[in-house]
């Protein structure tokens, strides 16, 4: 008998994804120690230098500099900090709002379900990027505002997907059985329903993290993300547009950062879904 945790840790997908996330996470956490330069420091004497190994590269700027002479590596590392902060807080926030409403909606059904369902419908009919842009205009720029905007846009995803899972679990006789044994609604949801929906919840969170990274990049790209004093990958892409012909790596490196982070979270989500979902494991795979 192996528990879900040990089963997950035997999955190659999960292990690779966790490894990648750990690397990015360390960069984010210890950016101050790892980064060779301050990400805001401009060196106007050496702008658009190529990476250190290319002709004309400067060893003190391992990945070269951007149009204002800022160290790309340092900006990437600090950008990872922004991306990770947004990924974690936004996805957990969206998860909490979405899953609480999903459990209430799916468990009680009836009018409550109808109201929450319609609310989600209306919410989801706004294009998500436009909605977050509008929110950012209203809220103003800043890390916490980005997180809030993503939470407000993406809770519906959790709510809709989880609600159908809650509905399925609630139809099982064991949920009816504990109600008849005298469990309160709260006890029933927490002890019987939640453990069954948890695998899906965890999977959704990891996928949401990938989405949050992309959304944050988009918002920063249009200049409505974190403040201009805080490095972000989206911002780097926006800055690199002007010099894309002179120094393509300026554009490619932050894209690579986004790509790796999103891949890692998606891989984690997929791996967890395979190992945690009872429908996969009960059939003996």
């Amino acid at each position, binding site marked *: 008998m192996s528990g879900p945790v040990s089963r997950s840790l035997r999955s190659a997908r999960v292990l690779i994804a966790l490894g990648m996330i750990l690397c990015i996470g360390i960069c984010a956490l210890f950016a101050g120690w790892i980064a060779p330069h301050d990400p805001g420091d401009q060196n106007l004497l050496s702008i658009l230098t190529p990476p250190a190994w290319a002709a004309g590269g400067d060893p003190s700027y391992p990945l070269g500099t951007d149009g204002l002479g800022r160290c790309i590596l340092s900006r990437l590392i600090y950008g990872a900090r922004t991306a990770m902060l947004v990924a974690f807080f936004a996805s957990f926030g969206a998860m909490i709002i979405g899953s609480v409403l999903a459990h209430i909606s799916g468990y009680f059904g009836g009018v409550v379900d109808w109201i929450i369902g319609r609310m989600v419908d209306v919410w989801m009919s706004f294009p998500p990027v436009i909605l977050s842009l509008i929110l950012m205009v209203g809220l103003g720029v800043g890390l916490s505002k980005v997180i809030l905007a993503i939470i407000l846009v993406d809770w519906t995803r959790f709510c809709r997907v989880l609600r159908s899972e809650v509905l399925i679990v609630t139809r*099982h*006789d*064991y949920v*009816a*059985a*504990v*109600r*008849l*044994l*005298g*469990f*309160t609604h709260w*006890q029933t949801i927490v*002890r*019987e329903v939640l*453990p*069954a929906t948890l695998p899906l919840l965890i999977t959704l969170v990891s996928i949401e993290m990938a989405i949050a990274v992309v959304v944050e990049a988009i918002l920063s790209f249009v200049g409505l993300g974190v403040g201009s004093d805080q490095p972000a990958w989206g911002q780097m892409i926006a800055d690199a547009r002007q010099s894309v012909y002179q120094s393509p790596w300026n554009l490619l490196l932050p894209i690579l950062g986004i790509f790796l982070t999103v891949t890692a979270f998606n891989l984690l989500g997929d791996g967890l879904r395979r190992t945690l979902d*009872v429908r996969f494991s*009960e059939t003996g795979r």
Partner: protein
Amino acid sequence: MFAIQADELTVGAAIDGVIVPAIRALSFELEPGKILGLVGESGAGKSMVGRAIAKLLPSGFKVTSGRLLFEGTDLVQMPPGALRALLGRAIAFIPQAPMTALNPVHTIGAQFDEHLARIDEGDRASRRDRALTMLEAARLPHATDLLAQYPHQLSGGMCQRVLIALAFSSNPRLVIADEPTTALDVTMHPQILRLIADMQREHGTAVIFITHDLRLAAQLCDEVIVMYAGRAVESGPARAVLSSPAHPYTRCLQLANPSMRAERRALYVMPEQMPSLSQLRDMSGCHFAPRCPLVAADCRRVEPPSLMLAAGRNAACIRAEATSDIGATQQLTSAPAISQRLVLQVEGLEKHYAAGRGLFGRGRIVSAVKRASFVIAENEFVALVGESGSGKSTIAKLLVGLEQPTNGRILLNGENLTEATTRSAALRAISLQIVFQDPQSALNPRRRVASIVTQVMEAGSRHAGWEELRAKTAELLAEVGLSADLAARLPGQLSGGQRQRVNIARALCTIPKILVADEIVSGLDVSIQAQLLNLLARLRAELGFAMLFISHDLSVVRHLCSRVLVMYRGEIVEQGPVETVFANPQHPHTRALLASVPPDEPEVAWSMLQAAVN
């Protein structure tokens, strides 16, 4: 020439890299126009025979040796193309679940036409005529209308008739019917069986009839093979085998089946259950030995050969001569006296559902239960019988409070439970419990057995101590006859019978005054069913509780209950003591239910099947 002949057929299954035989050296011969019954409990390998013929074995299973000769040609060696040409034409199948065997998005006519086109049955018009002829032969009314209908518009019984018509439309020489009535209502059984028998006789088809019901096999089949753990333990002419079984397993199965007409007796309880494939791997000797009442030292050492007892009669048992001495070992647990004190009173209970209510218009009102009134006294086991959709389960849900009645009253120990209040919920929690039909769904797959059976002690603000929980778990598991080391298992690691015991144990935790049991032995094998029926009788004697036992199996009802309520279309149409009602049924539905049970004695002709012969 034989229609089909199996010659030492062996089907192996790969279990953890080892090949375990799921069918071992099965040999039989079936002449054209005869019916061969394959009888046994689930896991005996009977369905595997049909799948081997169609080459539709589950992954990991394959024919490892032996031959399957269809009219002299070996199906095992046959190239897939040639086999495909036979299937659907010369060999046809009648499936177990008729509702899922038809494609829901095509009309019956389209599906018939597709099948007939595949077997090259003329042009469109002649195919249509053929379809109509076959549907009429299957005694389906309004065959023309039926062609334009979709499967969901038909009842399960009608779907099965359509499938039987389909199967026989190609004039097959062999038909394999795998439990064709199991998924249907009991009242449908005789008609479906009669139809198969008639079609078989008319077309001179050889039929392999797979069933778990010995009484049915005795009525329908010419020859039977009783299978146990992949082996044919006994074979011979159906009536001879079932009237004087030579193998202890056949005899034990018969004794485990409650009787409809004979005097009530204790059911014979075979210990444990049929070994699973992974258990078979490590077994030597006779596979039935661990459960056999006649077991001798030799049985555990060597596998007994199949011995010929008479012409065409074989049994794989070295002690076959003693089989007839096996009798019920247990005394019928005497039921405690039923007192006059009423536990449950139900008065004029009604439940209406609004159906088909759209945005506009009022919609119809469907009454699931119409003015049901009954009482249950202390320690009394009352049965609620009726076909599916008659409102039995709705009554159960109303009683336990999962649904609210539209009208009427429910009194538990004189206290009104009709209103859904915290007080009525609390009253129910301590004295009225339900055992759900499907333990798979009723047990949380993520909780351990120990935590499931003591779940009630987690309810509300009660906080039972660790010691208290452990003591209660041990006590409950012992009561339902489960070993204490199962406490740490998850429901997925238990067998069907064990799961149902856990299910019962949970309901008994508070020692309720009344249990509502919804079809709790329906999905189980006869030997497991006997274990549970005896368990319920013993628990009543020990703990004292009343029960509303919902079932469609009248022989089980007769065995366990003293009074019966017959439901038909939401109404209780008849109620009274079991013996009286069964001996002298008043309502046509009660009569239909009674007629659908084949007689216990193989010699006695079953009137329902006989009517067709003449």
